[in-house]
Each structure stands twice: as C-alpha cells, then as structure tokens.
C-alpha cells in the first residue's frame, strides 16, 4: 500500500475527521430520536402537568406561577438533555467499551473529539429545550404565556443552557467511574434539579439569604433566571424581577469556559496516558 496522501493538509484532515465524527453522532441520534425525546422530556412533562396545571387548578398554586415555572422547565430539560447526552455514554465508553478509540485514532487532535461531544450534546440540549414550547402549549392551554419581544435573548439563553449542560456532562463523564454511576447521579442530579431556581424565581429568595446563596453555586439557577427574563410576560405593565440578564450571560459564559477547559483536560487525561 503506497502512501499517496501527504498532499492533504493537517488542518483539512482534522476538520474532515471532525465533521465525520459529528455526522456519525447525528446518524446515531437520529436513529434513537424517539428514545432520546422520551428520556429527555418525561420528567419535564410531568413537572409541567402537576405544578403548572394541577396545582393551580386545585388552588394550591397561584395562577401566575405557571408563567414562572415554564422557563424553569425549559432550562431543566435543556440542561439535563445535553448533560445526559455526554455523561452516561462517556462513563461507559471510557470505563470499558472503548468504542471511542476508533475516533481517537482518526487524524484529529484528541481535544477535538471532546469538542465534538460538546457540540453534539449542545444540539441535543437545544432540541430538548425547544420541544418544551409546543408541549407546554398543549399541556397548559390558555395559561401558556411567553413574551415574544425578547426572542434573541431567548435563543441565546437556550444555547447557553444547552452548552452549560454539555460542559458539566463532559467533566462528570470523565471523572465518574462506572461503578459510581448511580451514586453520583443521585448526589449530583437531585441537588442540581432542586437548587436551580427551576420552580421558584431567584429574587423571591431574598428572605432566605442562606438558601439564595446556595442556589448561586448552581449553574442551572442562571439558566432559569435568564430564561425567565426572556420569557415571562409583564403583568400589568410590570416586569417580574429576575437576576440581571447581563450578569447571567457573563456568569454562564465564564462558567462554560472554565468547565469546558477542565472537562477537556480530564478527558485528555483519560484517553492519553
């Protein structure tokens, strides 16, 4: 076999390999699309139904609560979908399946294999987040309300939320050992879901300062609050108070940068010894 491929530049080789691995993941995601949607959306659908529909109907939650809840559910669905899209497969793959080796032997630097995982997970998170809108409309009926004058911010917030889930997923996926999966999921997911201002707005915690401080450690808080800013319609001409959108965006971008850097480093440590 005679070598005839020197003419292709390294950059082109690496980009080609990157696109091909992305294509592979899109094909696989497409095939498992129904399964993906069920996994990503089952929990949010029930949250929406119980907290957004049933509780207000029986008078245990105020009518306005639904409008505050919906952005939280978009944030939760998007983040969990992208996070789960990386973490579990990566834990299993690095632990014993080693299916990833074939991609690590492709002519691209190993960090680009991690970057591709982040990109794909972000796509999955974005799809899951967007799917909540029609589902919310169906479940909530006439209490479904989203303002339409901040669509650019809304799009940016969904992308940032999905990317946040992806980088956390990469970090978790490269740290957790297969035998620790169920413990880590309980230890990380439960606090993540409940301290992320998904079901309550952050400014309302002003009277419970210590808890408000805790929620600020959770990246989901910033996602929920940013989406609230972009989605909740003004009531009687008044904006509902949220965390400042500027701070939210800065915090998320910094967080994505730090976490993505750390996750890529731990990824490289796992695949190159």
């Amino acid at each position, binding site marked *: 076999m005679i070598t005839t491929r020197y003419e292709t530049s390294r950059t082109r080789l690496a980009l080609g390999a990157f696109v091909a691995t992305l294509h592979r993941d899109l094909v*696989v995601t497409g095939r498992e699309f129904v399964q993906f949607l069920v996994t990503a959306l089952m929990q949010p659908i029930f949250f929406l139904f119980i907290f957004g529909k049933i509780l207000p109907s029986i008078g245990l939650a105020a009518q306005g609560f639904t409008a505050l809840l919906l952005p939280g559910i978009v944030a939760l669905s998007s983040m969990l979908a992208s996070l789960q899209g990386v973490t579990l497969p990566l834990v299993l793959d690095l632990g014993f399946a*080693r299916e990833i080796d074939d991609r690590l*032997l492709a002519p691209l630097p190993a960090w680009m294999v991690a970057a591709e995982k982040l990109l794909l997970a972000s796509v999955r998170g974005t799809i899951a987040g967007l799917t909540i809108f029609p589902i919310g409309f169906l479940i909530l009926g006439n209490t479904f309300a989203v303002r339409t004058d901040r669509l650019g911010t809304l799009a940016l917030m969904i992308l940032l939320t999905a990317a946040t889930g992806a980088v956390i997923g990469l970090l978790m996926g490269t740290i957790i050992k297969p035998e620790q999966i169920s413990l880590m999921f309980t230890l990380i997911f439960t606090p993540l879901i409940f301290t992320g201002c998904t079901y309550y707005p952050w400014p309302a915690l002003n009277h419970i300062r210590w808890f408000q401080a805790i929620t600020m450690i959770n990246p989901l808080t910033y996602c929920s609050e940013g989406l609230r800013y972009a989605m909740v319609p003004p009531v009687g001409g008044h904006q509902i108070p949220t965390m400042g959108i500027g701070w939210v965006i800065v915090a998320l971008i910094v967080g994505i940068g730090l976490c993505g850097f750390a996750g890529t480093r731990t990824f490289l440590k796992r695949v*190159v010894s």
Partner: protein
Amino acid sequence: MTSEQAISVRNLIKRYPQSSSNAVDGVSFEVERGGIFGLLGPNGAGKTTIIGVLTTAVIPTGGEASITGFDVVREQIRVKQHIAVVPQRPNLDRSLLVREILTFHAAYHGVPRREREAHADQLLKELGLYERRNEKADRYSGGMSQRLMIARALMHKPDVLFLDEPTNNLDPQSRLFLWERIRALNEQGLTILLTTHDMDEADQLCQRIAIMDLGRILVNDTPAELKKLIPGGNSLELHVETAEPAVLVERFGALPGVSKVEEVPNTGAEAEPGVTSFHVFAAEAGALVGAAAQAILEAGARVRDIRVRQATLEEVFIYLTGKHLR
C-alpha cells in the same frame, strides 16, 4: 517526507504516574518497511505500552519514536493517518451497523464516499462478513469481531498495522485464517507489528522477533537465530539398536563440530529393550545425519530413528525470561 524505516524507536522510556518503575525502560528497535515484527513477552513486559506510544495513546517519558519518519509526539495527525490498530479487546462501535463501522472509519480518515463504500464491500466479502453486513456488531462471535476489526483497520489503507495479541481467544480455524490474512497483507507491502505470547504465532509469522521482559528488550533477532541462543539447542536425537552404547558415544563424539554427546537413560513407557537413545549436540546438527548413520553402521548397530531437534521459541522464551509467574 519518507523514511526507510516504517517504525523507529530509540531509547524509549515510559513511567506511569504513581509507579515506582519504568513500564518501558530504554527500548530501541526498528522495523523496516514491509516487515513483520513480533514483540514477545510475558504479561506486563511493556508490549502494550510500546504499542500505545506508537499509536499516540501513550506519551513517552523519554526517548523518541517515529512512524514512517513522523514523530509520534509532534506529528500525531500524520502518524494516525498512516497507522491502524487492531486492539486486544473488541472496541467496535455498537451503535452502528457492521458496514457503517467500516464506512464511518474511512470517513474519519477522509476517504471519499464512493471509494469507501466499494472498499467496505470488498473487505466484507474477503473476510466472509458480507452476508451479515447489516447487523449490529454485538451479535458477532469473537472470531467475526476480530475479522471486522481487521477490516476496519484496513479501510484507510494504512502503511503500518498494529496487532495487539491478535489471536488471543480465537478458535483454531480463525487463527489459521488470520495468519493467512496477515501474511497476504504483508505481501502487499503492509508493515506489521504484532505482540503475542503465543510462540507458535511469532514463529509462523514474524521475520524478526524482540523478546521483552520487565520493560526491556532482551534479544532482537530472526526466529532461526533466536533458537540458536539456547546452548546446545540444536541437536540430533538418535535411537539405535546396539549392545555397546559406549562405542557409539565415542564415535559420535569424533564427528565434526560435535560439542557434546549424551546417552539418554532409556526409561519410561516407550523404552524398548536393546534400544539406546543418544543426544548429539552440534552447531549444525542437521548436517550430521549422514555421518551419524554411517558411524552407527560401522559400529555394527542398527538405526531405529534419527531426528533433528531444534529448540522451540518457547524454550528460548523461558530460557530468557525465567519460569516464575507474574
């Protein structure tokens, strides 16, 4: 950029973090283009680490290694372009169908669509997998998975193929089939480096063999030369009907090049009364067959059996690496 050597390793050292000794401890060897090179050694000798370094999965602590002239640390993309790996354990992409495993692998390497589709079909046919190309790989047997991994490795037409214990856990048919394929690929110009602790395999396939232990290469030579390493490893085994064994010992000892003659105690189930066995050690024992037969006739004895005994690689291996378990 080309190089005469397909693989070049110089003073390679690898020490893993939190380890007190070097997994690879100053290894040097070269494999010329078109060669089949075997790394032989007990478990933990450092074979897989060397493959790891040469396939960019392990960063060396010291020394240098290159593939067709490309440094494995500085030119990783080029190295990956030119190599293929068949690992010890199946790592097939179980989310894809068998044929897609091949076509996607080629796509990762930038092979154009039409070419990769045709090549995939051709390899699937050659390796007897074409009928089951639209299944998922997790339904494949061990032998089929192995063949599929070889097909995958060949999809981007590499120059150097790494086989890490390729016939471990294979049935005899699969093993023979694989050996034939390896030889055929080598004849087409592919350079092959394989690790094994199967002596027979190394003997059958490799043009050169390096025997490793504890991170070092103990010897590096052709299989024939390695077998000469055991003192007296080359000998004639003679079974003779004679009444006077001592005369024969004397006559054999007088043959040219003989270093030692042993009269083997005739015990055990196969012992026949009146038949004595001798071991005649010489550098070129095979050349002594005629002269030994002549000597037996002249002594008035009768030949029952003459065999040329060569040391097996296994004997060389045990001789060099010792018998203790690790």
